[in-house]
């Protein structure tokens, strides 16, 4: 199992997301069915899911999902984890043999809390402590990779069609209130399971269909704030920008969306004065965080889910609502497959985010 041989392998994709805004949990079988509908958009070389609310019994623990190349890597990884965290429970993630899925790494999960002495001597907020540990673990422990590290959520991914991956991880046995899925069509042959989407950072997960023409600018901007884009994927940049704006700078998520897919200058010219000043300031200060190039993304976090298109809508994205449920997907058929009669179904405008938040939680 190698890391990706090539940088920034461009790929076409399929994405799908479903959320129950009342917080009620539902089975993973729906999302598997939805993404399976879009099989043609993938080529079997990558699939993955993010699920929220799946570990209610450990809802205050950070749930680490890990890939290990081999036994020595697992031992080294566990040494690292044990040094920094108290592990409440550890074990392999249950999987099922699926004919089309092969060469899987060792897949383990751990429910962890930062060790008190380590946390206080670092002087960091627990979230920041976990982020630093994840970065260090990925960098220093050979053959080990952190797939996800958020509380009461997890990412499940690998090389294969997404519906097969879903079968492999037996996701129909889990219930969550947010599910997102991704199917990949890379233009090179990845061997590495870590390259599939979603990309996660704490409880933030990103599934992404697209390619960033602005990658070079965005990455250098993130470097200034301490983010090293080691994965060399476009999705990583999207995740770090959301992390920078929402977690570190405390910005509301719709403002973060407006930085990444802002209105055009001639549209801003026509706005009323205070709106014009707002958007001008945003574009002026955060110009290097503008995402150029085609994309449709679904970003999920513990309080909700947002879907966003690039400013000139070069990738497809459809959204629908039924009662408390919010659906977004690359194709209408993927939504109709699991929700035959939505109350409302629409194609979001370029640059306009679709935002679903848990009831009672503000943006």
């Amino acid at each position, binding site marked *: 199992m190698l890391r990706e041989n090539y940088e920034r392998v*461009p*790929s*076409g994709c399929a994405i799908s997301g479903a959320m129950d805004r009342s917080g009620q949990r539902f089975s993973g079988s729906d999302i598997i069915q939805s993404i399976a509908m879009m099989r043609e958009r993938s080529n079997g070389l990558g699939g993955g899911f993010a699920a929220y609310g799946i570990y209610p019994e450990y809802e205050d623990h950070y749930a680490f999902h890990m890939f290990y190349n081999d036994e020595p890597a697992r031992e080294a990884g566990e040494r690292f984890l044990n040094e920094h965290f108290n592990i409440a429970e550890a074990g392999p993630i249950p999987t099922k043999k699926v004919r089309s899925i092969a060469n899987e790494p060792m897949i383990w999960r751990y429910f962890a809390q930062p060790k008190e002495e380590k946390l206080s001597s670092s002087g960091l907020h627990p979230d920041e402590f976990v982020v630093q540990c994840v970065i260090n673990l990925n960098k220093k422990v050979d053959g080990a990779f952190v797939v996800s590290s958020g509380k009461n959520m997890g990412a499940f991914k690998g090389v294969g069609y997404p519906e097969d991956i879903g079968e492999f991880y037996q996701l129909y046995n889990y219930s969550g209130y947010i599910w997102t899925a991704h199917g990949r069509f890379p*233009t090179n042959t990845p061997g590495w399971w870590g390259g599939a989407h979603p990309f996660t950072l704490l409880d933030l997960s990103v599934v992404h269909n*697209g*390619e960033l*023409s*602005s*990658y*070079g*600018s*965005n990455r*250098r*901007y993130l*470097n*200034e*704030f*301490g983010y090293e884009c080691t994965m060399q994927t476009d999705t990583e940049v999207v995740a770090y920008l959301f992390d920078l704006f929402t977690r570190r*700078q405390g*910005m*509301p998520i719709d*403002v973060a969306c407006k930085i990444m897919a802002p209105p*055009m*200058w*001639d549209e801003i010219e026509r706005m009323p004065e*205070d709106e014009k*000043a*707002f958007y001008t*300031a*945003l*574009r*002026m*200060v*955060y*110009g*290097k965080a*503008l*995402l*150029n*190039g*085609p994309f449709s993304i679904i970003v999920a976090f513990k309080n909700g889910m947002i879907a966003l298109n690039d*400013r*000139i809508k*070069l990738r497809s994205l459809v959204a629908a609502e039924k009662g408390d449920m919010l659906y977004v997907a690359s194709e209408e058929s993927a939504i109709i497959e699991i929700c035959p009669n939505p109350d409302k179904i629409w194609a979001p405008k370029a640059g306009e985010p679709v935002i679903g938040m848990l009831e009672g939680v503000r943006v």
Partner: protein
Amino acid sequence: MISYILPEFLVLRDENRCIQCEVCVRQCANDVHYLDTKDGKVKSDDAKCVNCQRCVTFCPTHALTIIQNPQEFKANANWTKKAITEVQRQAETGAVLLTGMGNPEAYTVYWDKLVLNASQVTNPSIDPLREPMELKTYLGRKPDMLEFDKDGKLLTKLTPQLVLNAPIMFSAMSFGSVSLNTCESLARAATELGIYYNTGEGGLHSSLYRYGKNTIAQVASGRFGVNPDYLNAAAALEIKIGQGAKPGIGGHLPGEKVKAEVAATRMIPEGSDAISPAPHHDIYSIEDLRQLIYALKEATDYTKPVSVKIAAVNNVAAIASGIARAGADIIAIDGFRGGTGAAPLRIRDNVGIPIEMAIAAVDTRLKEEGIRHQVSLVAAGSIRNSADIVKAIALGADAVYIATSALIAIGCHMCQKCNTGKCNWGIATQDPQLVKRLNPNIGARRLVNLITAWEHEIKEILGGMGINSIESLRGNREMLRGVGLTQKELDILGIKAAGE
């Protein structure tokens, strides 16, 4: 006493075409052509010709051609004709060799070794004729982040910015080194285009105050023309520490060019040489620079951005980092190909480093220190066309300054004799007979044409890359590849080789 110096050029006159109209006689400021009354024929004295091509352009029958003097020395790859002639000239005059415009020597032009990306298949290119393509640029200091109140309204107070319709500005050319008509052309074009022009160290002539909104007022080491009205008339201020053509030394305006208007604007006596000191005598260290930056901000009530212009030298990255921390809002870096009205030839041709390297190094250094997003970078020093502009921005510049290309647009033919004050095109002169030759109506129109054409080309290139906003090109080294560069050069530029 015979001069050993060979004429540099020969004037060839096609007698079948020459109609003895004497236009060439009237137009040559160097008295090359004359009418021989004995036979009524117009003849030429080659030795005085500087190849400015005024006569070639104006001759109504195209009877004139100027060629390099074919007279050769014995073949010598080391002692070239140029090397020999320069020694002869100094033996005759005992003087420092002076010259004008930018370094013409055969150093590598890195722009020509960079190629650009285009999007295909996995990422669609964008059609600039049908989709908006945004070049709007804000130059100035930016905060680390914006803060909003609970209603989503902006709390952070923003510092003053320059707003440009395109990432291009006219670089510093002082009134004195160039004519008032040149300044008027630049000012009018900048106003019409929604960009800025720079006064250079000559101060601001009273007739140009009306273009103040599009003016950057320069404060150079001689402090020529610096008074509170001057500072407050402009949209931004620039402290000139150095320029690419002559790093380490100050400006030089020969007394012949210091006529009444020039003297009044610069606040110096008429006919005196205007020699700017090498350093600012109140800036001997970085903290002194900080003091001057804030003095200017105080004098203008913190309403205008302050830029600092430096020449690209060996440790330009460290200097730029210091300038950013000293409170400058904009840092302008002038590479060794930058032009000038007068400079010692040896310094112009040997001192300084290429702007391509300098911008790449400064952008990377500031990024590594986590301060790149706070200041704006402007690149200068031979930006010849729109592709150079795209490459400069991809290497890290926020905008570019152009000067030589602007002068070529309005008539300069690069004869490099600006220091003599006899510019036949009415640009680098104060002789009223010659100054008339640049009609600002025509000059402004040609500049607007040039920049408009470049804007369209930049939009085409951006669209081809799959980008519809210039912000996404800044520092985007992924869009560049190197051809024929060493690994070290690739590393410094921070780009990959073509094929990688």
